[in-house]
């Protein structure tokens, strides 16, 4: 299957001076995208942490509210 694709103009990869730079540019581009994804992941983690904190806070408040009700009955 793959051998059928090879006859198509195979990538000319002259690893002379200039070629290195161009290939490097594409690699840098991909790295930058990965870096961006990592930054997004960090943001997501922070949001997740804050949400968990807030959920805990809200549950705590509910529990406090219920315990207050209990004391009033008594």
């Amino acid at each position, binding site marked *: 299957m793959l051998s059928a*694709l090879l006859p198509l103009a195979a990538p000319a990869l002259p690893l002379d001076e200039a070629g290195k730079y161009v290939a490097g540019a594409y690699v840098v581009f991909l790295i930058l995208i990965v870096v*961006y994804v990592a930054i997004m992941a960090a943001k997501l983690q922070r949001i997740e942490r804050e949400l968990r904190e807030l959920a805990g806070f809200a549950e705590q408040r509910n529990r406090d509210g219920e315990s207050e009700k209990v004391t009033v009955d008594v």
Partner: protein
Amino acid sequence: MYGKGLRALSIATVATISLGFSLVFFYAPLDADQGFIQKIFYLHVPLAITALVGFIVGGVFAIAHLRSGDSRWDAYSYVSIHMSVIFGVAVLVTGSIWAKASWGHWWVWDEPTLVSFLIVFLLYATYYPFRYAIEDRDRQARYASVFAVTAGAFVPLNFLAVRLAESLVHPRVFATAEGGLPGSMRLTFLVCLAAIALLWVTLVKFELTAKSASGQVKRLRRALDAPAASGQSRIAPEVS
């Protein structure tokens, strides 16, 4: 809801980028003059076009913000400009690599488009300190929109002036791009352009979704009367 359609968009972006890069390295023929170096043009030019269009789009959002007063437009404008500045860095870096590969210098003043882009980039880079210096949130948003509109008007003028200033002796190296581009090169170029444009839109959407989520968290915090979190950005507009 900013997150809607984000997955489909991301998949489309990844697919197009993969296709585009495959075409660059496996399909597009070698340029007769420049050889392998020319392949950087498939990355550099789409990045530049996308960044410039992004700046104009930021200006259009800014007009919408000024006319409606709705701060959502300000957020769109900010993110558009922000993403275009980041893409702009990539443009300058790839442009520099191309200059080094072609002429052995990391920067040349001969290519008018690259020089124009540098100037546009320098102007938009002042967007951040400009926003940061204005404390009142509403005023900051309004003035930032005025900046975006002014800078948007600036872009075509700048390209015109720099193009005229360049000596007519130096041929525009990317002229071969506009002129008789063989079909295979044109196809590759268009696919790469679509890929980079999709990437821009996807990243902008990501950014807006993250902002929106943060905004909702803040809103929840307020509703619960929970203690405030630290680390608020002074310049990035909030989305809620």
